[in-house]
């Protein structure tokens, strides 16, 4: 596949960020947690694209958007394989993988409806743990684990 055809699959952007190597089945969750529905910038996405490394992947391109640490933490929790590519003037200026944080505060919700963070005005606090290879958020307050599929962000 040459470069011309690749571009046709998902349009190129002049300035902004490309999130590559998202597991295909997590694409829409990434869109949701970054709140891209409400973005007024150009957003392109594709999924079930072929990837040598991951079988099938998703990709998102967002114009004029560069991510802050709390946003890349969210991406890392649902799509730990993701790569962030910063584009300026059609050039790749930076490529980085996301790092899974050890702790997350405020950004995620606890799935336990009877947790104090869902009953009182208490900011959430989690330790990020791995159980049989899957990332989970261990709640500092109710001590229950929120699994990837149940992750909801503020």
């Amino acid at each position: 596949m040459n470069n011309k055809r690749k571009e046709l699959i998902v349009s190129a952007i002049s300035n902004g960020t490309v999130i590559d190597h998202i597991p295909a089945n997590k694409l829409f969750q990434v869109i949701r947690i970054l709140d891209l529905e409400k973005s007024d910038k150009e957003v392109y996405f594709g999924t079930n694209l072929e990837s040598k490394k991951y079988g099938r992947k998703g990709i998102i391109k967002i114009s004029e958007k560069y991510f802050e640490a709390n946003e890349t933490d969210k991406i890392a929790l649902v799509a730990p394989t993701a790569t962030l590519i910063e584009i300026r003037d059609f050039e790749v200026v930076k490529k980085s993988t996301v790092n899974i944080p050890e702790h997350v505060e405020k950004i995620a919700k606890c799935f336990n409806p009877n947790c104090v963070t869902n009953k009182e005005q208490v900011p959430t606090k989690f330790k990020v743990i791995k159980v049989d290879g899957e990332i989970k958020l261990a709640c500092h307050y109710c001590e229950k684990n929120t699994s990837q599929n149940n992750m909801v962000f503020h």
Partner: protein
Amino acid sequence: MKNRSLVSINDYSKEEIMQILEIAAEFEKEPHQNLLNGRVIASLFFEPSTRTRLSFESAIQKMGGNVVGFSSAATSSVQKGESLKDTILTVCNYSDLIVMRHPVDGSARYASEVATVPIINAGDGANQHPTQCLLDLYSIKKTQGTLENLEVTFVGDLKYGRTVHSLVIALCQFNTKFHLVSPVELKLPSAVKRHIKEANLQYEQYTDFSEVIPKSDIIYMTRIQRERFPDPLEYEKVKNAYILDNSMLDNSRENCRILHPLPRVNEISIDVDSNPKAYYFEQALNGVFVRQALIAAILGLK
């Protein structure tokens, strides 16, 4: 432990747990010790729990302390929509220590973060009940002479019973061999089993009760609740499979003791009560000594 809250049994190291149990033994020998000498302890029961509240209040009064607080949310300002934070901060002005019971998971941890005095968690929703765990450990140590290298059998609802979860996790520090007896629907959750595996300890799971009795130093009984079964027929099938009666103890070990967090319904037949191996009523009394020890240690009086 001085000035430190106790929210979850994991907050204390093995050494600290052993220290509390030693102080509790001193209180068992001499329950009336005027250590609090008029200090004020708040007892905030946002949901009723008569047993636990009486045990704490008895512990406080035997040490010469005064109790302020409420025994249900209906009689407190919570009724008027006050936040937990505001209630706790207000009560801090009037007390040296807060004992709290609350229906919401994680409420005690949060309270311990906003409070200016230490908090003792007397049960937060389905999460933790560390003083029950301490009294269980005290009862095991007292009847067996040690906590190390015992074979402990848990029977009944191992899925939802928070006292079972806390005790299993605490016993992982004492080289315990676990026998887990329950219907398949109520097996010990994998999150709790993970602690046993991480400590490299042995455990076996059974659906049949009788075969493990001769192997047990401690038999920890729990109640199986009808509400736990979506299908009433499933409940009918298992409800009589986990009842202990006196004849079943015929080939039990000499040192074997039966524990139960109470209240019991029918899972231990009345004919067991007079067997010297029945320990559940003394177990409840031990709760007072353990709570005395904890209060004294946190306030730096022992």
